């Protein structure tokens, strides 16, 4: 566990929902609009900033993304793009779900964009039954309701199971 005394102008400590603390350089934290606003309004005078909605595994991923983007100069856009496409590549759906919530909560636009794109690419052109399985969405429709939704939009389901 990092000591909270280490907090100074250059670093701050973030605490995940499961109690793990992360010492983060300020310029890395500034990738998050939420943290930026907190720092601007001096709400961060507390030694530790709690992030009660984000678990340690997800926060570590988020901070990895932020560090890469904060450290790269703008001339390295190509490198960042390939980092972004690798970042989510083999991520399971549970981790992706936590990540997109975290990116939304912490207001990290770049991360939110690539996560939303990854989810959209996963959905695209797939039958809804398959989407349900991939995302583990419980089917709340009765068979009659589901048939009604399909019937109402029959044109969109041509050639789909």
């Amino acid at each position: 566990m990092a000591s909270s005394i280490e907090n100074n102008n250059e670093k701050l400590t973030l605490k995940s929902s499961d109690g793990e603390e992360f010492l983060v350089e300020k310029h890395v934290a500034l990738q998050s609009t939420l943290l930026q606003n907190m720092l601007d309004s001096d709400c961060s005078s507390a030694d530790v900033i709690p992030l009660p909605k984000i678990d340690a595994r997800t926060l570590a991923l988020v901070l990895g993304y932020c560090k890469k983007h904060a450290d790269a100069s703008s001339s390295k856009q190509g490198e960042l793009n390939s980092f972004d496409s690798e970042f989510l590549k083999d991520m399971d759906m549970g981790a992706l779900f936590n990540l997109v919530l975290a990116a939304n909560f912490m207001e990290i636009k770049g991360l939110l964009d690539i996560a939303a794109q990854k989810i959209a690419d996963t959905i695209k052109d797939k039958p809804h039954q398959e989407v349900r399985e991939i995302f583990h969405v419980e089917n709340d429709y009765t068979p009659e309701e589901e048939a009604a939704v399909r019937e109402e939009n029959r044109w969109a389901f041509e050639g789909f199971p």
Partner: protein
Amino acid sequence: MANSCRSRKRRRPASSDWSGLHSDLLGSILNRLSFVDIVRIGAVCPSWLSVAKSHPSSTPPMLMLPDNLGDEERYLLSSWSEHDYGSSCFYSLSDEERYTLSSNQWKLGKTRCVGSSHGWLILSEDQPYIYNPFRGVSFQLPSLPSFPDFTGNVRKDIYSHTDNDDNLQVAYLLLLVTHLVSAGWMVTCEIP
């Protein structure tokens, strides 16, 4: 019918509840999907359906084609003189697919389509009205004399038309439609 009531109240707490995804977040995912994908994912679960139904599509407009023509004449504008929209076919530029609305969904017979905006067709019979073929919803528009003081910039860029008396009317209607779209359509019902 016990079976049809199953699991309605019995949602087990999942670690990642995709069906409970906040509508803003789901919306930013839908922004990256084509219109047909958005319609299809409404069949995944009721909460996605409610978001998908109200989501404004950002995909390019579809081309409306008469379905009662052969493949060759389908693409000739000269074949359109009849204005018979007895059944309807839409060509999507984004995924290069052709979609046909079933006859029980497409309820227009011979009518005059004078324009379109944001997925709504503007149709003219005795009284102008607008119709969303994919939602099967129509709204009567007030006739233009109901708006004696109506002024504003006429958006001719949305729609081109030959220069005749109808032109102004259609342009006004389109402007009205654009305004109503941005007002969420609720206004439509309140207009006398």
